[in-house]
């Protein structure tokens, strides 16, 4: 038995090697680089000082947090209802809807941006169709604006949120609803007092994933707005690839702060969940 367990441990070596090589090493290198002077110099905190004193980078954080929060919030609210609606479908239909949702949740990046340009861009199918019908989209909506970008973000957040929330509804036992009904609770009261609090940790966890997903989104935003829209991943991309000149150390500092923002959001979510669901403490 001991020999078998030792053999099992040996099989995990490739896994830990991959984690070390492709997660830990880059992470440590990024943190190290963020404290390194440009051109491979000594220890410095000047990149952080520059980020906090430069309104341009602060605006990038503000924009990233805002679009991520907004798209995650809209995504989660819609997905809470959508995932529940799917659970009410017949079993065979549920499986089909989930396959489609899975496909759309993987439709992101440049192909997604292209699809939106084809449909809702300046000469997009729906824009031209609306013009034929006498409606000018351009008056109220442009794909290459803040609202257009938010729409694209919501689009790739929504299926992911549905995929993550759908299994959570299995945790709601039918007999809880029946017991609540026999005790005089309306469906609304049941969801308010029992259903939603039980789902809450999962909803909060999903929100955190959506928020992180949006914070790190690069390709869709870049393909849609180029570097016109000031977001942290686009700024990091520009500093690393060196559109003008490469500053990977400053890019690393931005990436470290991006990671800290995500960690902070996770901690706040965790704390809020435990405040509400005291039984989990």
């Amino acid at each position, binding site marked *: 038995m001991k020999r078998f367990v030792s053999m099992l441990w040996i099989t995990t070596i490739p896994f830990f090697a991959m984690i070390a090589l492709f997660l830990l090493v880059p992470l440590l290198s990024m943190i190290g680089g963020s404290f390194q002077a440009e051109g491979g110099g000594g220890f410095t905190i000047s990149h952080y000082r520059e980020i906090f004193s430069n309104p341009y980078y602060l605006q990038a954080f503000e924009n990233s947090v805002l679009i991520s929060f907004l798209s995650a919030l809209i995504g989660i609210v819609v997905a809470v209802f959508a995932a529940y609606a799917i659970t009410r479908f017949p079993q065979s239909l549920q499986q089909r809807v989930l396959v489609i949702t899975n496909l759309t949740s993987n439709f992101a990046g440049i192909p997604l941006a292209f699809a939106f340009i084809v449909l809702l861009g300046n000469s997009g199918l729906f824009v031209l169709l609306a013009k034929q019908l006498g409606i000018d989209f351009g008056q109220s909506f442009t794909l290459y604006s803040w609202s257009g970008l938010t729409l694209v973000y919501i689009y790739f957040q929504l299926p992911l949120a549905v995929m993550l929330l759908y299994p959570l509804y299995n945790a709601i036992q039918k007999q809880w609803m*029946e017991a609540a009904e026999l*005790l005089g609770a309306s469906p609304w009261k049941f969801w308010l007092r029992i259903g939603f*609090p039980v789902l809450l940790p999962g909803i909060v966890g999903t929100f955190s994933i959506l928020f992180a997903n949006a914070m790190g989104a690069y390709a869709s935003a870049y393909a849609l707005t180029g570097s016109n829209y000031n977001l942290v991943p686009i700024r990091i991309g520009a500093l690393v690839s060196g559109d003008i000149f490469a500053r990977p150390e400053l890019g690393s500092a931005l990436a470290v702060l991006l990671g800290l923002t995500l960690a902070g959001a996770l901690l706040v979510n965790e704390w809020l969940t435990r405040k509400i*669901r005291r*039984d989990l403490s």
Partner: protein
Amino acid sequence: MSYVQIEHLSKTFHGQHVLQQLDLAIEKGELVTLLGPSGCGKSTLLRILSGLTAPDTGMIYIDGKDVTDVSPKNRQIGMVFQSYALFPNLTVSQNIAFGLEMNKISKTEIRLRVQEMIELVGLVGKEQAYPRELSGGQQQRVALARSLVTRPKVLLLDEPLSALDAQIRKNLQKQLRTIQRELNMTTVLVTHDQEEAMAVSDRIYIMNGGRIVQHGSPQEIYTQPRSEFVARFIGNYNVLTAEQLNRIAPNLSHPAVERFAIRPETFREQRLAGEDICLTGNIAQVTMLGNITRYELNMGDVPVLVDTLHLSLEQEEIGTTKTLYVSPKDVIPLYDTIA
């Protein structure tokens, strides 16, 4: 009219008859058990009584009122589910108070009634515990308190003890019966455990194939089964055909029915009365069941089970010939041929 009256109730699921023209009557303060094998329709009957499932046909009356089309929350019915269905995010007190809050009872009264229930079910000190912090038996008692606190007209128990250990189950059976008597609560218990039904019920309804095949007090059901199904389900009855009975007891005069039942514990080693029937057979198998020793005797190619109290330390050996006596009164003719 009885306190709970069910008339001509039928229910079909996917073309299969789950309940067929079923009639049932329960008096106020009675504990009635629906006993039957899995799939006999007892849980469906309970759900129809609660309003969680609608019948296809038939009427349900509670306290003289027709509640057939009344919603579950307006039926004034309490129910304890097999899984207890406690709300995991609420404490013991909050679980018990839930129904009172939904019925907009004042906070002072809620506090009083919750405390009263906690004392009744013996959970003092566990008020602030969450369900996952409780044992199965404690969870069951919370579920019972939650159903009783709203003072329902009828309490429904859907196999509430089936998930518990034998010892805890026996303790809770007693406790359940004591509380039910104390509150004079009209109660319907669903179970497939014959011993449990015998231990707690005022009356037992035995179900099979969506029908009630026999009902009566535990004593009546056990000693006077009317069909082979009841005889086999309720105990370890020996069910013999008329031909088999004639073979082992040729001198016994009996009514002209197809089958007869004899309880294994009615066989004795001594003749107590002149009319006792004498039977002889070879021991084919001996099983020690704690306080009882079960012999399987071969009486002229008819296998017969005999239970004797485990008084002697030495068991009789396989192959030994044994002579036993049984009273003609204990040879029960099974009049019902259906089910």
